[in-house]
């Protein structure tokens, strides 16, 4: 119990933040973190040494997806890397001023980030909010380290697009 607490108490904020961003609500995030802590406790003997944050966040991420799948029921579709490219829209960001204005609007930034598919939202959360290095993101998200950069490139491009889209709804 003591080792468990020493290892994971420092990462409770990171765990809750990730779960909260992935599930989108507080009570689900609490459940996810509780479940994850139980799992971490149960499999503590498998955690040798190393990055306890990445290890814990990996569990939190898996539990978050389990929750997302369960809450989406049969509507769940695993979203792979092959999303339809929206190149026309991506290259046509001819409204830099509006983008700049929207980037200063906290509510819009939050809304745009929420609108991203989970696999893109999570890399933004881990990089921008958690400030994790690519090698740790690769562990948590379970992709090769070489894929982290391209995933982030996509995620940021999509986020920019979302921010511009929000404008058109105003």
């Amino acid at each position, binding site marked *: *119990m003591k080792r*468990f*607490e020493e290892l*994971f*108490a420092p990462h*409770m*904020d990171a*765990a*809750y*933040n990730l779960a*909260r*961003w992935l599930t989108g609500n*507080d009570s689900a*995030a*609490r459940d996810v*973190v*509780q*479940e994850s*802590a*139980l*799992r971490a*406790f*149960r499999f*503590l*003997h498998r955690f040798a040494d190393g990055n306890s944050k990445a290890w814990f966040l990996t569990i939190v991420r898996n539990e978050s997806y389990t929750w997302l799948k369960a809450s989406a029921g049969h509507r769940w579709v695993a979203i792979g890397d092959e999303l339809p490219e929206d190149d026309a829209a991506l290259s046509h*960001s001819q409204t*830099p001023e509006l*983008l*700049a204005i929207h*980037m*200063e*609007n*906290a509510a819009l*930034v*939050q809304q745009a*980030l929420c609108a991203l598919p989970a696999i893109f939202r999570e890399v*933004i*959360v881990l*990089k*921008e*909010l958690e400030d994790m*290095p*690519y090698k740790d993101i690769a562990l948590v998200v379970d992709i090769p380290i070489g894929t982290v*950069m*391209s995933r*982030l*490139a996509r995620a*940021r491009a999509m*986020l*920019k697009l979302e*921010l511009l889209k929000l404008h058109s709804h105003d």
Partner: protein
Amino acid sequence: MTDLNCTACQVLIHGYLDKELDPTTTAKVAGHLAECAECTRLHDQARLLTVSVKRHAPYYSAPASLTASVFAPVVPRTSTVERWRNWFAPAFSAAALALALVLYVATPGSEQPLMDEAVSSHVRSLMGEHLNDVVSSDRHTVKPWFTGKLDFSPPVLDYSAQGFPLLGGRLDYLQHQTTAALSYGRAKHIINVFILPTTESDKPPITQSIRGFNVVSWQENHMRFVMVSDVEKGELETLGQLLRKGA
């Protein structure tokens, strides 16, 4: 210098921004940016975007109540009465936790933490003066004492005749479950028998040695038995047989 096309560069600018590129690639990207207005524009936009997310996207810190419930303190060691008063509130509030634990912890393959906890509890029970909550060799005193404190009925029997006098019982807390702990004497040695409910089917006894203590465990009638002591393996197994026979 610029053997880098724009498509490749537009991915690399992210590694460049995040300072994740090796020096050679960093130099290539910097070279390309110096000459390419479009990539520079995208780079600047991406940089502003990351700054904007850092500044405006909320960071959700873990609620204190969540952290408290995840790292719930284990058994306060105070007087029996007080302990019980202090215990019920957290016990109920952790009902969901306990339920989840039945599913997660009571599944096969999770034995080792339990055995470890049992050994620790055995050691603690000998260190303090808290071996027993109810001191009696009379099973008709010990058994009713457990009633209402546990949601299962552990077998309580005295084996004085066979050389294992019942010393008493207490409540313990293993694997996040309220556990009955019976203590038996064997010459000058103490044997702790932990009994907790399980949803699993019966399992034959296993003897192992953990941190110098002998541990015998088995499952029967949806109860899990763990005996811990420094007595010899054979003697511990003898008491195990008596407990299983229930005579």
